[in-house]
C-alpha cells in the first residue's frame, strides 16, 4: 500500500515511564566501538570516553535516564545507504550505543573520536548525537555533543550555528583527563534550568 500523496500520520510518542527494564541493559551496550559485546573493537580512530551527568530541575540527578548515542566513524562515514560513502564505512564500528544513569545521574560511553564530513547543509564538525529518554520525558530530547579539539570546524558547523551564540559552549564537551588509557571528555546535561545553563535541545 503506497500512498505517495496521503502519508500516514506518525504514531505519537510516550515516555518510557519509571519502569524501563534494567534487564534490557547488557554489558557493552554503552560501547560504540564494537558491533556486539562479543565482537572485537574497531582498530580505526582514537578511542575515547564520553561521560557526564544528567541533571533535572534544581540540579538534582536524573536517575534511570536512558541515553542513546549515534555518530559517524573515525572517517566521518555512516554504515547506512543514505551516506554516499557507506561502502567505505568502518565495518567493525557500530556507532550506536545506549547508556543509563546511576543514582548520581552519571553515564558513560566508550567510542571513537568521530570524523567530520561534508553535508548539503554545511561542513559538519566531529560530533555525537545524543537522545535522552526518562520517566516524564514524553518525547525524547535530542542534542549534539561537539569536541574542544576542533574550534574552527565547530564554528562552521550548521547545527551548532543554529544555537544562539552565547549557548554554543554548552554543547562542547570538556577534557576530563584520562581513564582506561583513553582521553575522556565530559558532557553534562541539565534538562531544565536557568536560560544560560539549560542544555540546548533541538527540534527532533
Amino acid at each position, binding site marked *: 500500500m503506497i500512498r505517495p500523496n496521503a502519508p500516514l500520520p506518525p504514531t*505519537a510518542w510516550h515516555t518510557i515511564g519509571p519502569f524501563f527494564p534494567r534487564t534490557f541493559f547488557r554489558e557493552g551496550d554503552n560501547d560504540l566501538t564494537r558491533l556486539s559485546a562479543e565482537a572485537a573493537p574497531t582498530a580505526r580512530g582514537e578511542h575515547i570516553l564520553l561521560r557526564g551527568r544528567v541533571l*533535572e530541575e534544581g540540579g538534582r540527578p536524573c536517575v534511570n535516564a536512558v541515553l542513546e548515542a549515534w555518530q559517524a566513524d573515525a572517517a566521518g562515514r555512516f554504515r547506512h545507504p543514505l551516506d554516499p560513502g557507506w561502502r567505505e564505512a568502518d565495518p567493525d564500528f557500530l556507532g550506536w550505543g545506549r547508556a543509563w544513569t546511576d543514582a548520581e545521574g552519571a553515564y558513560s560511553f566508550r567510542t571513537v573520536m568521530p570524523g567530520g564530513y561534508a553535508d548539503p547543509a554545511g561542513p559538519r564538525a566531529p560530533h555525537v548525537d545524543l537522545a535522552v529518554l526518562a520517566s516524564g520525558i514524553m518525547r525524547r530530547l535530542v542534542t549534539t555533543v561537539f569536541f574542544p579539539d576542533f574550534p574552527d570546524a565547530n564554528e562552521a558547523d550548521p547545527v551548532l550555528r543554529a544555537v544562539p551564540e552565547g549557548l554554543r559552549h554548552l554543547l562542547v564537551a570538556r577534557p576530563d583527563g584520562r581513564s582506561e588509557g583513553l582521553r575522556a571528555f565530559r558532557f553534562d546535561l541539565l534538562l531544565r*534550568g536557568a536560560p544560560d545553563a539549560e542544555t540546548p535541545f533541538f527540534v527532533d
Partner: protein
Amino acid sequence: MTRRDPPDLFAPYDESAQPAVPIEGYANTFRRNPARPPIPRPYTRTARTGPLDLSPKLKPGDDNLAVIAPGRIALGQLIHVSGRVLDEDGRGVPGAVVELWQANAAGRYFNPLDTRDAPLDPNFVGNGRTLTDREGRYAFFTIKPGAYPVPDSGRWWRPPHVHVSILGPSTLSRLVTQMYFSGEPLNAHDRLLNSLPDAAARPRLLARQIPPQEVEGEWLAFSWDIVLRGRHATPPAP
C-alpha cells in the same frame, strides 16, 4: 513549489498529535522538560541515518512474554499482539528492533522500582525484544496487563498498556510509545493518552481486538500498526 526530492523525507512532528507537557500529577514532566523551546536544526546525515543492524548488539528473539520457561506460564489472560511497523508511506519497515515491557496481570512491574503492594508473578518478567520481518510485521504473545494507580496523583489509574520501543532505519524514525486496548473504560481518563491535543491522534495508540472466530488458537488476539516518521524512509538492504 518546487521540491528537491531526496531519497528520504523527514519533517518535524505535527505538535498537535504529540503529547503536551507538563501533565498534572506527573511531577517528572515538570522537572525534566526543558524550559527553552527546542531549537530548529537542519537534518543532516547524522540525523537521517541510524544503525541498520542492531541484532548482534540487542539480540532480539524473545517474543513470548507469557511463558518464561517450559511449563512456567504467567497468570492472566493470554493474548497475541501483532501488526506492522510502517513508514509514513505505508511501507513495511523490515529489521526494526521492537522492545516491549509491561506490568503483570495485577498491574505490577517486575522492577525493583515498582514497590506497589500488588502481587508479583514468579512466572512473569514482562520484557521482550523482537525483530520485524521483511514486510515489517511483528508479533508477540503476552498476558493482558493490569491497570495500576499512579502514586500521589489523585487517583489516576493507568489503563492496561504495553510499553513499546522501536529502533527503525534512522535516528529520526526512533519511537517510544505505549499501546492501549480499545474499549477500556480507563482510557477516557488517562492523562498520558489524553495529553495528545488532537483527539484524532489518540485512537492510533489503541490496539483493536480481532474477532475471536477469526483467531486460530486459545488466546485473544489484538492488532496494532505502528507508523514511524519518515517518507521513503525504508532503506534498501545494504
